[in-house]
């Protein structure tokens, strides 16, 4: 019997091929695998120890679509029955006619009336197949065409930091700059306001991206915003987010993910795609109550 040992500390950066633990008492989660007696990392990331399960949170890499993610896409093609969106990922998404608007769109209608080429759209992913075919919907709170403004590309893995706890970071930027800001899970941010304030918002977001690992980041950003806008900024963590706050939704989903991990581990392997669905950010807001009853 080999010794059962954890070789790496929690929240440490691990690299592919690094042996994380020896012995059979630790279990491989996402981003890790088992080779004989060892649990080994298979991507660059932060190690998270969740009980007996070892997993890694990615630090780099392209966005891979996940069910229920809210993303910003750009129309790249108009199809017979919908629109094709580019979502800053290796795979493009399709917005079908029936999910585009709440109103009825007749067959053969001129689709450019709704969304034109190069339009930016805030949409939610409804389904991802095993082949990474992606379906999105525009039906939902806040999901719509994004008119005007500017687009900023950020590291997808830093989106949670940009949004902040319950949307605190992004709502601070919004309040300070009077800009409308939307950050998609796919690392696309949309900012709309006066040119000067847009610039401040862009710089603030870039700063968060660069210094995402620093503790007390919120205070630093607050300082930056106060200096740039000349206004006093208050940090507030919304107790309960309003229905139009899409960012808060994102954060709550993260909590969901944490809860689900142990359960999802049991399904590891034999039902890969179901497992992947389970690991997604939890059910959308409107279905949640229903699920709790179950």
């Amino acid at each position, binding site marked *: 019997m080999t010794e059962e040992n954890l070789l790496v500390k929690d929240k440490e*950066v691990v*690299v*592919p*091929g*690094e*042996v994380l633990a020896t012995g059979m008492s630790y279990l491989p989660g996402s*981003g890790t*695998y088992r*080779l004989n007696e*060892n649990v*080994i990392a*298979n*991507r*660059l*990331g932060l190690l998270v120890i969740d009980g007996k399960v070892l997993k890694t949170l*990615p*630090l*780099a*890499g*392209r966005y*891979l679509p996940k069910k229920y993610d809210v993303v910003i896409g750009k129309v790249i093609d108009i199809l017979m029955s919908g629109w094709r969106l580019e979502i800053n990922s*290796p*795979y*493009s998404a399709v917005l079908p006619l029936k999910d585009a608007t709440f109103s009825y769109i007749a067959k053969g209608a001129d689709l450019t009336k709704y969304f034109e080429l190069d339009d930016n759209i805030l949409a939610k992913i409804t389904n991802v197949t*095993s*082949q*990474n075919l992606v379906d999105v919907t525009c039906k939902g709170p806040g999901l719509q065409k994004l008119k005007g403004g500017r687009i900023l590309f950020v590291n997808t*893995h830093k989106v949670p930091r940009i949004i902040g706890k319950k949307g605190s970071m992004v709502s601070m930027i919004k309040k300070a700059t009077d800009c409308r800001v939307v950050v998609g899970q796919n690392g696309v941010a949309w900012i709309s306001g006066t040119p000067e304030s847009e610039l401040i918002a862009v710089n603030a977001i870039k700063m968060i991206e660069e210094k995402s*690992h620093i503790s007390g980041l919120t205070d630093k950003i607050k300082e930056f915003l106060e200096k740039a806008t000349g206004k006093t900024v208050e940090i507030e963590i919304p107790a309960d987010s309003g229905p139009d706050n899409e960012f808060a939704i994102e954060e709550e989903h993260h909590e969901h993910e944490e809860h689900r991990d142990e359960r999802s581990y049991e399904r590891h392997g034999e039902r890969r795609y179901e497992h992947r669905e389970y690991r997604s950010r939890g059910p959308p807001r409107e279905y949640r109550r229903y699920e709790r009853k179950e």
Partner: protein
Amino acid sequence: MTKYTKRLDNRGMEETRPIEAKAGVIKKADGSAYFRIGKTTAFAAVYGPRELNPRHMQNPKTGILRCNYNMMPFSGTERIRPGPSRRSKEISMVTEKALQPVVNLEDYPNAVVDVFIELIETDAGSRCAGICAASIALADAGITMKDMVAAVSAGIIDHQSVVDLDGEEEHIDEMDVADIPIAMVPSTEEITLLQMDGKATREELLKSIDKVKPVLKNIAEIQRKALKEKYRSE
């Protein structure tokens, strides 16, 4: 008995030239790395996974890996004609095959991962340096992979096995020289690249493969350290 008892640059028989590695050197790329061994310097940039065009090249079962090895015109003593050559095409292909076993391409169906390797300075062992750099760059790009791939050349000079031939040693005329580039997956000791240029007996070859294994594990450690360093300094 061997006449080659001391190496031309006073290195130990199983000692490599000084190695330096760094991750994330090209900002625009999804992942990048720099790997230098002695006077051989390789840069690697990884783009993707991204959409693969033309469509007919797409594979619904798995993503594909595309490697491109290129020597800069000024990299050696003699000017290299720019553009693909028979040699660079071959090395691109073997690099691809050396890296493929560790990369979990099934995670990216229909997509492609592009790896570009540029050598700005060459003094033997350039394909090995290229593979080392590419493997760091792939990890830096956040691509899922089972392990790193480490590569170095083994050598046999007048029946004496050595590690990491430099340009001078490669061109010794008075003695038999065999140059054996080897790439290995450290965790499984699986060999993913093995080529040989020169003459050696079966026993000599097997012996030098055994000798090079600990060296390769060491190089893998250097690669991992380079990746961690990127996040430490930030």
